[in-house]
């Protein structure tokens, strides 16, 4: 290896693979500038450095091995990268030219000192100077003086800033600099794509709308509809979702670690139902697949993998979606589908993990989760709808409005889980739980008690946390699953401190104009930050959600993960992030929330009991 100091400073370059002797003994596949050291001559607009070194290719790396300048060799890209023919890799004999951005972008950088006329080429300037009778000199075409020049990008971080990746012509480096580091000022009228180089823009304009869509599988489409259709059925999407499901399963396995991404919630909501065996031979069989987009934390889902199968609140909002504005009949289609005797195929809601029998006639009595709002409805619309339904229903229960029996007695449509303590409780689907002042101390209150909404019953549970359901004062609690969800959402904590046995003022105030049509609730400002602040400050027991970290819990088997993003309601006024942050700013986190053990496959009840005990203790203190 020869190292020669050129006039512009010492330039060290090596050719070929730097220090890597290829095992196959082949010579370097390509040559390039290894690195450079510049000394002196800083700052000229154009400085030239010569690399005069030559390396014998056959040495296959020995040359560099013997090089004295190891630091320079460290600049070399890893050999693997060189497999592709990267742009750059100029002739090592060439001059390396660095132009400042300004000079580079200047259209006429050769300026006549007499008339200030600018030229793009020095040759042209020289010819121009002839007209002023100034000394002029055209570059000789012959001889070794004409060195090949290569140009590097002035942007320090750019790959083409390295002389080993210099580009061979000035136009090339200009375009590169514009594209990568310049402003994109050329905009396509059709598709609004922006380009920094006018010629790129022109080229695009010619083909815009013709071959614009590319699937991950590599297929190109000229039309959007073709592309979209392809996308839906392409394996690329299926694989993607398979990957997602796979990762979900992995997460499930090591549920104790790592905060789960909110995405897992989404995954869980993809529910698919194979045809049930007993339905296959029926004349009217239904295949039902369903996906609900994630929304509020209310859409938390729990999949219970018990061998008995079955409770799934999985498609909580699904239930809602299907029972929009209907009475309980439709709900029972979904929940109690198997118990229906009509000829119509029951619509089924099922857990992906459960055994085929969905809602077995119930020796184990469970209460199904209340339907949380579905994504396509804003919270206010939901309330409105609920109010309408509530008005229509014989019971004014909000719960019933959704088609759920309002619960003081087990209903025919669902199985009910007996609350072990036989105490009154309410399930919260929403963002938190409040304690019921009038009930036993530390009862988790349901956020949205129907009684409070539409009846003038003395309210037992008053807080509004998401769109949950609640039962007030009855010994049998509804919505256990939902309750589990809420508690299990991890990071939920009871406010310590004082408790209030009186209904919230804010609520009472708005309760004054409750109307059957629910107009009072259509005003999204009802649940504005003020109200919430007021209430959170009133010393009532409440459950807070830690926004800062994804929350998780283990109920039965599956994990629930709720990321902060899930906390967004369609109606942003409902829960302002500020309030939530504020509320989450204090309070201790339950250990189980952050340090969850391996998935417990024990029955739900033990989990519930432990939560119950925990909550009771917390609220008592």
């Amino acid at each position, binding site marked *: 290896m020869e190292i020669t100091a050129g006039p512009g400073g010492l330039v060290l370059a090596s050719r070929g693979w730097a220090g890597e002797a290829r095992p196959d003994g082949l010579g370097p596949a390509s040559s390039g500038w290894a690195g450079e050291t510049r000394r002196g001559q800083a700052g000229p607009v154009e400085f030239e450095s010569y690399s005069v070194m030559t390396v014998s290719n056959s040495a296959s790396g020995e040359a560099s091995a013997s090089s004295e300048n190891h630091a320079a060799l460290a600049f070399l890209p890893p050999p693997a990268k060189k497999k592709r023919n990267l742009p750059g890799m100029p002739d090592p004999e060439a001059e390396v030219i660095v132009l400042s951005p300004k000079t580079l972008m200047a259209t006429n950088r050769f300026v006549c000192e007499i008339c200030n006329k600018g030229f793009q080429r020095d040759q042209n300037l020289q010819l121009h100077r002839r007209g002023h009778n100034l000394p002029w000199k055209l570059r000789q075409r012959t001889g070794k003086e004409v060195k090949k020049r290569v140009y590097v990008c002035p942007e320090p971080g750019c790959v083409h800033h390295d002389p080993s990746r210099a580009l061979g012509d000035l136009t090339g480096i200009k375009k590169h600099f514009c594209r990568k580091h310049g402003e994109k000022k050329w905009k396509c009228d059709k598709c609004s794509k922006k380009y920094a180089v006018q010629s790129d823009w022109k080229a695009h304009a010619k083909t815009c709308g013709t071959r614009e869509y590319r699937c991950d599988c590599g297929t190109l489409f*000229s*039309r*959007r*509809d*073709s592309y*979209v*259709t*392809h*996308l*839906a*059925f*392409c394996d690329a*999407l*299926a694989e993607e*979702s398979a990957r997602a499901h796979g990762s979900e399963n992995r997460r499930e396995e090591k549920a104790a670690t790592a905060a789960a991404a909110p995405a897992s919630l*989404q995954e869980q909501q*993809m529910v*698919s139902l*194979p*045809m049930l065996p007993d339905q296959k031979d029926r*004349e*009217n*069989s*239904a*295949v*039902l*697949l*369903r*996906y*609900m*987009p994630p929304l509020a934390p209310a859409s938390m889902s729990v999949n219970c993998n018990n061998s008995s199968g079955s409770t799934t609140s999985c498609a909580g*909002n*699904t239930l809602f*979606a*299907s*029972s*929009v*504005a*209907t009475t309980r009949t*439709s709900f029972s*289609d979904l929940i109690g589908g198997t118990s229906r005797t*009509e000829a*119509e*195929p029951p*619509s089924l809601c099922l857990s992906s993990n459960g055994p085929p029998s969905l809602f077995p006639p119930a020796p184990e009595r469970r209460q199904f989760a209340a339907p949380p709002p*579905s*994504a*396509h*409805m*804003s919270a206010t*619309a939901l309330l409105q*709808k609920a109010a309408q339904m509530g008005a229509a229903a014989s019971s004014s229960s909000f719960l019933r409005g959704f088609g759920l029996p309002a619960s003081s007695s087990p209903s025919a449509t669902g199985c009910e889980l007996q609350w072990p303590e036989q105490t009154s409780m309410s399930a919260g689907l929403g963002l938190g739980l409040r304690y019921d002042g009038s009930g036993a101390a530390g009862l988790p209150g349901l956020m949205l008690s129907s009684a409070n909404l539409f009846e003038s019953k003395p309210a037992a549970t008053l807080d509004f946390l998401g769109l949950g359901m609640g039962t007030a004062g009855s010994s049998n609690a509804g919505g256990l699953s939902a309750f589990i969800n809420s508690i299990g959402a991890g990071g939920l904590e009871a406010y310590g401190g004082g408790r209030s046995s009186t209904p919230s003022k804010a609520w009472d105030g708005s309760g004054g104009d409750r109307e059957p049509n629910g107009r009072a609730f259509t005003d999204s400002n009802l649940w504005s930050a003020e109200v919430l602040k007021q209430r959170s400050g009133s010393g009532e027991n409440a459950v807070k959600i830690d926004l800062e970290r994804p929350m998780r819990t283990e109920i039965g088997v599956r994990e629930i993960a709720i990321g902060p993003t899930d906390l967004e309601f*369609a109606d942003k006024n409902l829960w302002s992030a500020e309030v939530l942050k504020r509320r989450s700013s204090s309070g201790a986190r339950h250990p189980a929330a952050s340090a969850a053990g391996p998935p417990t496959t024990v029955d739900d009840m033990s989990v519930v009991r432990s939560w119950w005990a925990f909550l009771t203790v917390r609220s008592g203190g």
Partner: protein
Amino acid sequence: MMQFTENAPPPSLYTAGGGGASLVRPWPDFPTSAKSLQGNFNNAACMEQLLVHCACAIEANDATLAQQILWVLHNIAPPEGDSNQRLTSAFLRALVLRASRSGCAALASSITGCAAPDHPLPLCLSPLSLAGFIDLTPWHRFGFSAANSAIADAAEGFSVLHLVDLTTTHCMQLPTLIDCLASRYPDGPPFLRLTLPTSSPAPPTLDISLHELGTRLVNFARSRNIGMEFHVVASTPSDGFDSLLRHLRAHHLAGEALVINCHLMPHRIPDESAGSTTTASRTSPRSAFTKALRSLEPALVIVVDEEADFTAGDVVGRIKAAFNYMWIPFDAAETFLPAGCEQRRKYEAAVCWKIENVIAMEGVGRVERLEPKAKWVHRMRAAGFAGIGFGEEAVAEVRGMLDEHSAGWGLKRDDDDLMLTWKGHDVVFASAWVPTTSAPV
């Protein structure tokens, strides 16, 4: 009836004709060589004439005459010829099939060799192939584009869109509809309930199960953040989707926008000419179907179908109608698909299936009973629907789509409806209907 020898070589027309002097020649001047045949007979009108006469001969059980004509047709219309020849060849195969079905088995077997009905059917495609297949022409896309805009409009203000997709295209419209909904309602797209009848046997069929199809659709909807349900109800057009309609009555929820998308499917419902002896005594299944739709109080009904009348009771009438309609897919394919390519083979196979169904099948097996727009309009109005037409957006959508296809395709707006045209000839119509406020007639 004339003597017929099964394995006789295809007789020279003149010599055969010379033997049977009593035969009435439908053509005045009969050329002698294949080359001149090409010259003189290679026009659609002549081919149609020959097909009609051949059909008459088959109907009359005149095997010799039928065989002769078939032989001529086979010679002037090779399956790999130009579009008219391909068209005629398809009809030829259909006639052979008809002959074999109608008991003229000897005739059929004798001409099998020359007509060479190679049956690439059943055409079974993967969803991706089917998508590509559908994208070849605007034949289906026209209805998709027009309907998507109208459906998205109808969904406005509803939280649930219940779409009943009556189509032969295996939900190929759905991805674009989902995409349309997602872009139209970025803040809160409606929840999509999709109800399908079990698939029809008509080609092209899918090589995946309905369940898998649904999985992919739901999966795709998820990628667009649209909630979706996928139901399949066992139901066929043969009974006017009776069980499907019953299902809808039971499961139609009050707060949802019910949209019935009839895409090239309603013509599979039996019509008055279904051939049953009791037909006269009862109402047409199609009219019953439209009335049943009306009783569901749908938010929108889209009727897209091919503009032709294949309901004629006699095969000659159907041959004429089909010949003057089915040339369009062959002609269109000629403009953009190279002869002999796989896509074209499949494309034409599907067209051939339709021709065979129209010509060779009778009774319930004949499902391609197209009715022109006027008849459907009449039925829909009688059932208590009013046409609402398509918005400018839908029209722009369709025009944009057509711009990306061959220049032969065009769009015509008559009354409220849209009509896809090929070189000025009506191909497919699209119409949108809403229930009238007054009670149905």
